[in-house]
């Protein structure tokens, strides 16, 4: 059976939270809770508690980027200094650690920042085309709940939205 999107707009977080809670516990066949997306004009920590565990993986990118940045920095610098074997160093170390630490540190940060941003884009799914059901009111002051479900489940989901005073409901056209 084909799946369709339905979007409902709410005027406040309390109504949106109540809808999410009800959809989570309602056990509607043809609808998976993971297919529910909340759209809001601001970040809302309380809703995350209702949405359940949906982790962010950006920090793993950060760890990788910072480590690789630092290692790459040290490797490039000491690799270049190793070429100085051909030159007289007057007994000084070929790879002097204290000054190299500073550039390694800068590269550690550079790698961490760049790869974190890459991780953010990948994890947040950006850049992306906007979903077919999008309302500019979400970037203003309304809260949107976008649900993907089997056609058979749409009526029940719509009823949940209406029970909680949805301001507007948009449905994707059937195929």
């Amino acid at each position, binding site marked *: 059976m084909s799946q369709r999107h339905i979007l409902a707009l709410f005027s406040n977080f309390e109504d949106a939270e109540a809808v999410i809670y009800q959809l989570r516990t309602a056990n509607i066949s043809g609808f998976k809770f993971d297919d529910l*997306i*909340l*759209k*809001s*004009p*601001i*970040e*809302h920590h309380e*809703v*995350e508690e209702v*949405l359940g565990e*949906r982790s*962010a993986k*950006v*920090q793993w990118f*950060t760890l990788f980027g910072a480590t690789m940045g630092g290692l790459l920095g040290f490797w*490039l*610098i000491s690799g*270049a*200094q190793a*070429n*100085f074997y051909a030159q007289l160093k007057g007994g000084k170390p070929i790879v*002097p650690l204290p*000054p*190299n630490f*500073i*550039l390694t*540190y*800068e*590269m550690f*940060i*550079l790698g*961490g*920042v*760049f790869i*974190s*941003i890459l*991780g*953010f*884009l990948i*994890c*947040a*799914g*950006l*850049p*992306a*085309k*906007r*979903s077919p059901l*999008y309302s*500019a009111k*979400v*970037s*203003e*002051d309304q809260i949107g709940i*976008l649900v993907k479900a089997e056609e058979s489940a749409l009526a029940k989901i719509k009823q949940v939205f209406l029970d909680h005073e949805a301001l507007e409901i948009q449905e994707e056209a059937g195929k």
Partner: protein
Amino acid sequence: MEKDIREDIAWAKINGDVLKSLENPRKLYWVIVFAALAAFGVGVGCEVYQYNVGMGVANLDNPHVWGLYIATFIFWIGMSHSGTLLSAILHLMHADWRKPIYRFAEAMTTFSLMTAGLFVMVHIGRLWQFYYSLPYPNERGIWPNFQSPLLWDAMAIFTYLSSSVIFLYVGMIPDLAIARDNIHAGWRKKLYTLLSLGWEGTDRQWRNFRVTYLTVACFLIPLAVSVHSIVASDFAMSQQPGWHVTSFPPYFVAGALYSGCAAIITLFIILRYVFKFEEYMTLPILKKTVRLTFAIAMVWTYLNAVEFASVWYSHDGASKDVLIQKMTGTYAFAWWGMIFCGSIVPLVLAIKRFQTNIPVLLVVSLLLNLGMWLERWMIVSPTFSHGYYPWTWDHDQWPSLVQWGMVFGSFGWFTLLFMIFCKVFPSVSMYEVKEMVYHRSLHLKKGDTAEQGAH
């Protein structure tokens, strides 16, 4: 107690007010833009003249190899620390009063770094060889000196500039989406559509956004400290009299935060008037910024005293001579001007009734930055005029008009970039102001409920 922001401002009004600023500023905006353009023109004219005739026209010679160019370079690097302070440090401390003003502070960071970068090129003279300052493998097998603070500086500034641009852009994505959704069709809509990357404000996007913003903020704080410590190392790691001082790195970092805060006050006042942001850039927020500036001014004053004491009691005759020469010689007016503007003028900020007096604060903030610019000049030039060798004792060297013109032009360049940014991109973060309003109204509701319960 006065509120930082009204908690009953409608979210749609926040969007409307900020987006209006992109199209409809007060006339003063255009006056500032044209004045900045004219100042920048003076700088370009001086650079063209110096490029065609040679570095001699700057009146830089041996021993005066560094002059206003390097002093102004340090000044602009210092200015860039304001964005990190407001965006990153206060963000980690959950100081939500920063929300309406951090965006323009971040923009200041980016543009002051870009301005500082220009001075490296101007100072080198051979513009086409600017890339020599970056570590790169070349066909001659010649590598830069990795032990030199000048090379660390180039790397640190590159890291800071690129990270700051990214931080500014990423933090702006939700606002670019708001602009995309609400602005009429045209080049702006196309630009915002492209830059907002299809942001829809989904829970997944917000979740990852929050982690990323926090992570980059955590990186930026040590980075900002390292950048100005490394700039301080350009001096402190040399053997020149007056520079070989252990307290230089913290002294430079404190000075950077100080000039950055003073610049925030100046731009706060200008933007508040020009873009009609009275509801968002409120007087209580200005008061908090002023108090922060006062605290940093006192730290800077203390570190200044530490520096003088270190030199005075060091038994280094040459360093002591430089200090005495600063106080009594050719540069005495600039040195005493620095003490007056940097340590005496900020005392005005301690007086309660001046903490929200806009004309007084505008004058004071400009004087503070004049003091901070003089400080950088007094670090650079006097040392060159009185080195260890008697042949370097040339106390009457004075920067040429070309150098002054370039310094003047840099203020035009910075102002121009900054004002264009504020006209093209939202200079107040709409989503963060909404968060601020939301949390405050929630807090108020909880307070009311608790009060009713008590009755």
